[in-house]
């Protein structure tokens, strides 16, 4: 995912610097791309990934609790109609 984003950014830089790359879109010659540097973290990507994960977990847990409450509410109102228990 982040590797794909890096590839797009690199391709954009390559075209902007007018290097001898083909003008075909979305090709990526090994002669013009720089090697990915895994030693320096892409802190923006890391932050976005952790932030999105936290948001997704919060959304999931909130939705689950809402589902449970809605189920209990409907079960209770169904019993109320039939005057049992």
């Amino acid at each position, binding site marked *: 995912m*982040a*590797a794909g984003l890096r590839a797009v950014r690199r391709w954009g830089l390559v075209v902007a610097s007018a290097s001898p790359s083909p003008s075909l879109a979305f090709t990526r010659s090994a002669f013009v791309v720089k090697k990915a540097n895994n030693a320096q973290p892409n802190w923006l990507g890391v932050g976005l990934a952790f932030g*999105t*994960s936290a948001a997704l977990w919060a959304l999931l*847990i909130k939705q*689950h609790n809402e*589902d449970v409450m809605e*189920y209990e509410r409907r079960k209770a109102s169904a019993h109320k109609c039939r005057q049992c228990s």
Partner: protein
Amino acid sequence: MVFLPDESRSLPPPPLLNKGSVWLGFSGWMAALMDNAFNQRPIFGAGIHRQVLLATLGCFVGYQLVKRAEYVHAKVDRELFEYIRHHPEDFQPSTG
């Protein structure tokens, strides 16, 4: 076509960690590990943020899919029992 109709909320919701969410979360984690392997990074130690994100996405999608599957199964069961109720002559216990 709505993914989760309103009447699906009358069903008991599945637990947060169910078959679907655990399996898809695990497969999302595996996808991150495979991404590390293909890019020649340390398999477990690299890209923790990627592993967490893909596992979370898997759990989320798995939970929604299990809710939909339970709704479809409950709907089919309801129609089946309604049919049996409307056609008792076809469902008598066999005599002899």
